[in-house]
């Protein structure tokens, strides 16, 4: 339609361009065709998020890798050297950096996505587009940062290999892709749930950073999964109820060749993430209908 030359009033409008405005009912109503039509907006928003983040900074995109590197450094000193937490024979730096790849991505997605309605209240009040584009674009643009962090990880792994350490590099690396998919689905679902509830009550937006921080300690980022499910097994329930636990540990298995690939637990994670994503889309769909009325 758009590539036809503009012609006067007789121009017929194909039925798929008909927009029906009426009170919506039902729980899960996502207009997939419309989302596809706005795919260019998705790309442009991803680009905007990426560009705007480091404009007017001296280090530019370096910031995307400095944060996990600093975290790794602090973890290595505090948890490994001072507190003496075992890393299971893996060089501590790689141990932490590897776990921070999925965890950092997860935390970043949840915190940016959770603020969807509060950060875009003005935009949403002035123009219509499928609101789902915004949280999805956050998840995608964070993927760029993750890509850079992956590169840094391999640089360090290579450095350790040159120094003669036994560094794994094998086909298990492909397993990181389904793990990333679970992480993306879970974090998108959570950010949709949180942003839907913050649309009316801002309280949860203050709580989110604290919850994420607590969540990290319940996830094998600074310790191996074996600490949770080993021993007398009294912490095993944490590993089973936390969908990120087996994912973060699975990343170690995939990138370092050591760690636990816990099949049943990963299945539970995948299922939980799928359910949370569906619930998130439903809640978001309900919130977006009237969110501008209370803004």
């Amino acid at each position, binding site marked *: 339609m758009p590539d036809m030359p503009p012609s006067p009033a007789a121009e017929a*409008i194909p039925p798929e361009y008909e927009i029906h405005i009426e009170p919506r009912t039902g729980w899960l109503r996502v207009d997939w065709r419309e989302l596809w039509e706005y795919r260019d907006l998705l790309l442009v928003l991803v*680009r905007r998020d990426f560009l705007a983040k480091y404009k007017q900074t001296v280090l530019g995109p370096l910031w995307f890798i400095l944060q996990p590197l600093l975290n790794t450094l602090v973890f290595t000193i505090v948890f490994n050297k001072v507190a003496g937490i075992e890393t299971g024979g893996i060089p501590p730096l790689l141990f932490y950096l590897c776990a921070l790849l999925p965890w950092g991505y997860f935390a970043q997605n949840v915190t940016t996505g959770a603020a969807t309605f509060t950060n875009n209240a003005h935009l949403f009040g002035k123009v219509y587009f499928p609101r789902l584009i915004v949280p999805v674009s956050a998840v995608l643009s964070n993927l760029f940062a993750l890509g850079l962090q992956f590169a840094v990880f391999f640089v360090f792994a290579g450095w350790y290999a040159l120094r003669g350490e036994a560094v794994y590099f094998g086909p298990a690396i492909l397993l990181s892709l389904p793990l990333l998919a679970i992480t993306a689905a879970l974090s998108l679902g959570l950010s949709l749930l949180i942003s839907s509830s913050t649309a009316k009550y801002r309280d949860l937006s203050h709580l989110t950073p604290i919850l994420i921080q607590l969540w990290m300690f319940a996830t094998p980022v600074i310790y191996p999964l074996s600490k949770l499910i080993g021993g007398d097994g009294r912490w095993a329930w944490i590993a089973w109820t936390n969908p990120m636990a087996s994912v973060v540990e699975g990343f170690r298995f995939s990138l370092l060749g050591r760690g636990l690939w816990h099949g049943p637990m990963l299945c539970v994670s995948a299922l939980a993430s799928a359910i949370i994503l569906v619930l998130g889309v439903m809640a978001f769909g309900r919130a977006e209908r009237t969110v501008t009325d209370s803004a």
Partner: protein
Amino acid sequence: MKPRVEVESLSKLYRLGSIGATSLRDTFSRFASRFSRRGKALGKKEKPSAPAGRQGPTPDTFWAVRDISFSAKAGEIVGIVGRNGAGKSTLLKILSRITEPTSGRAILRGRLASLLEVGTGFHPDLTGRENVFLNGTILGMRRWEIAAKFDEIVAFAEIDPFIDTPVKHYSSGMFVRLAFAVAAHLEPEILFIDEVLAVGDAGFQKKCLGKMGEVATQHGRTVFFVSHNMGAVRALCEHAILIEDGRATMDGPPAEIISRYLASTVPDETAGELDWTERDDAPSCDDVEYTRLRLLDHHGTVRTTFEPDQPIAIEITYRVKRRLRGVRFDVGLTTQEGELAFVATDHQFQRDIHEPGLYQTTCIVPGDLLNRRGYAISVQCDIPGERFLIHERNYLSLVVSGVGNQSSSFPEQWPGVVCPRVRWEVRTLSEDAVPA
């Protein structure tokens, strides 16, 4: 052929309390106030109450838009006219899918774009070029469409040398021009525009109006245009809809709608005086009521027609029902075409404390200021920074006519909302000798 836009008994119910509720605590306190009168007294501000006649099914709801139906054809420019708060913006928000209706439905046949604001989504740190793509895709354009029109957009905005500069360094004029240029090059079948033409300088406004007219007539687009600028509505639209108290009360040719709109903003009975002392419909609130409004000439005679060089006294007599601090009155003059001429306030002159009693404040508009045309006079009473007591409304109208205007002695209308007496100094600096 089916109409491009069909609207069938569209209604939108708002909950008064939900406006501004941002935390769980607010909701709890509102919930509590339903059960105890103390709860209400503890509230920071008095909640707004539903305007008369728009009360919803429960006391804390009101109809922002009620039972509106109309249709529009391809190639039509439809003006939407109405007072502030009549429901125009809500109607536009429903039709542009920003919020959902409570009941009723609308069918829009074609791609849709709404311009409720110029420059929506512009990011200050990105360059003009990046923002054109950002804003264009937000408004629903595809990237290749923007790329194809990019040079045209930049040329229209007249900002060629600065297209790769971050927009935060733009002057406000450049910003608005670029933003409007993007919007003007949208090619949706249906376009909603809300007051955006109030921005930019006169030349650019004219260019935008021209572009809108061209879009509708040559490309068969349907444009909805919400405006207080009756001149623009008259010039552009072939069809207008009058919205009053949430309802579409009139639908037809713009000339009729405009005169009905302007008449509705001024009560017919006006004879230079409105006296409520013997009546019970005086504009009032819990604190204050107007008892009389009058227009007086310099002899103290009530009248509605004034010579351009005569001063005009706008006299407000009001009763204060309970002790008040910081009350002021605002008087506004709007031309018959709907342009605001000026607003004056007695804030600097008004007493600090009003004990209950009868008071009077008079605004004296000097002679040699107004132009020769009709003006509507609005009055508002409020406590600045705190709350409105009696909302702004047009009560009286007057006509300035006759000769004696220094700028023109011809009977034709002279442009401008005012025509003040200015001082001219005309000198001859040197006179060339005329050859004999």
